[in-house]
């Protein structure tokens, strides 16, 4: 195939619009971006697996420092869990409104999702500050090093997700609901649900296991 036809095919990938499909799947380009994002999520599963493995191995090495029983506060953890769980739900509703071509509904639910996400990050930061005041820092023990790296990586992902979704919202406001902005919204939705999946395992194997 010569360069010209190749270029033409490439162009068709993003210009051939199939309106019988949901917005985010209407062009070949969209379909491939979404598949590509699933590949990225596969890599994220492995990234978090290495951090969970480290934590599981080191979770009883207290080095004379505080233990999970002395540190974890189940009330705060439950609030964080409910905030993130609800934000995953409202994000699902946002995508649902997007499929109904309801731009206002989409934006409203996306903003609610982000506020819940901000609440989660705020709770987590105050939890970390509280731990550090109690003398539980990253340097205290192997348990706390692996704890802060695992939880910090997740919290950083949520924070980046908030920044990313904010930019997507600005783009929807500027360009309206097109196959391109719909695809971007769908992908940030996948990312957000994925962060909730990771949190389920943190909740179970870090907090609940530490408090049994």
């Amino acid at each position, binding site marked *: 195939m010569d360069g010209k036809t190749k270029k033409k095919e490439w162009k068709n990938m993003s210009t051939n619009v199939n309106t019988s*499909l*949901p917005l985010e*799947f209407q062009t070949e380009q969209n*379909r491939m971006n*979404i*598949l590509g994002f*699933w*590949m990225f*999520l*596969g*890599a*994220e*599963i*492995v990234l*978090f*697996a*290495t951090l*969970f*493995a*480290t934590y*599981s*191995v080191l979770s009883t090495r207290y080095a004379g420092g505080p233990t999970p029983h002395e540190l974890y506060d*189940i009330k705060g953890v*439950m609030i964080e*869990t*409910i905030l993130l*769980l*609800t934000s*995953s*739900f409202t*994000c*699902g*509703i946002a995508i*649902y409104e997007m*499929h*109904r071509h309801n731009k206002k509904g989409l934006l409203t639910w996306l903003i609610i999702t982000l506020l819940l996400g901000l609440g989660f990050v705020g709770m987590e930061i105050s939890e970390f500050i509280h731990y550090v005041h109690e003398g539980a820092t990253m340097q205290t023990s192997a348990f706390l090093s692996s704890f802060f790296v695992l939880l910090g990586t997740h919290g950083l992902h949520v924070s980046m997700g908030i920044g990313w979704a904010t930019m997507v919202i600005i783009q929807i406001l500027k360009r309206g609901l097109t196959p391109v902005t719909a695809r971007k919204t769908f992908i940030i*939705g*996948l990312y957000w*649900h*994925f962060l*909730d*999946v990771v949190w*389920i*395992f943190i*909740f*179970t*194997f870090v907090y*609940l*296991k530490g*408090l*049994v």
Partner: protein
Amino acid sequence: MDNHSKGFPKSQVFGFVLSLVLTFAALFVALKTSLSFNTIIWIIGTLAIVQAGLQLFMFMHLKEGEDGNSQTINVIYGVFIAVVTVAGSIWVMSFGM
């Protein structure tokens, strides 16, 4: 338009309620029962996997779209590597202790 986007967002609400039930079930089993440590870890671990599956299928629609199979195989592969990494690390590092 796809037909499951009309009317009430049933699958989302159902998934959300089920997630809440699973979360509180895990909380109850972990903190309010006097089962042995291993039994509790197995129960709450199972609840976590069910809830993760719920998110993947009901919210993320893993199997939907033209590339559903590729997506599923990719996630299964990621999970396989994750299980090998976590279980393998625990096994190797606790051997003989």
